[in-house]
């Protein structure tokens, strides 16, 4: 099978993956950050800086995706990951349904 690798579509594919990963890490970061904010440990000023930093991160990611024209690719990767995770959970919950059948007889 011939794979057509050109500079632009290779970049596309790899960048899409990288950005998807970065977004997922960013989401994890957000969860941690909000836990701290909710906990009341942080001062008003620290909250402000944290919020600002997260906002800057959001903006930066959006700009990269827009500039590189990969917004849809990134979404597709994340949707694909969702499907894979769904599939894994399904397999764990319904082993009967997913047991690989081997060819019987000849």
């Amino acid at each position, binding site marked *: 099978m011939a794979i057509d690798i050109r500079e632009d579509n290779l970049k596309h594919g790899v960048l899409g993956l990288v950005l998807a990963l970065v977004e997922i890490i960013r989401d994890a970061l957000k969860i941690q950050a909000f836990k701290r904010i909710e906990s009341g440990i942080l001062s008003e000023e620290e909250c402000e800086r944290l919020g600002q930093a997260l*906002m*800057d991160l*959001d*903006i930066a990611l*959006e700009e990269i995706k827009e500039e590189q024209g990969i917004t*849809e690719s990134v*979404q*597709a990767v994340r*949707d694909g990951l969702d499907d894979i995770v769904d599939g894994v959970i399904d397999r764990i919950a319904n082993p009967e349904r*997913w047991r*690989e*059948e*081997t*060819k*019987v007889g000849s």
Partner: protein
Amino acid sequence: MEPTRDTHATLVDLLDRVLDKGLILNADLMIHVAGIPLLGVKLNAALAGMETMLKYGIWQDWDEAQRSIAAEEWRQKRKEVPLADSEIATTF
């Protein structure tokens, strides 16, 4: 409302049923197929939502609205002009 069968969308409905369901024969009599994907994965993906597979929902709308506000704020911050009420209101 009348049920339909002959549109493109209902081909997906048919595939969901005919590929995955139906009466099951005794295993010792049957031809077995190794693994699950009987058909090219491409087929299922292609037919399960032809045009695009983008998952839109309010969460995308929310995110976009938030980001456009944030972007605006960032620009405003440099000019030190407060956000107008109307700009917040239009996101919801």
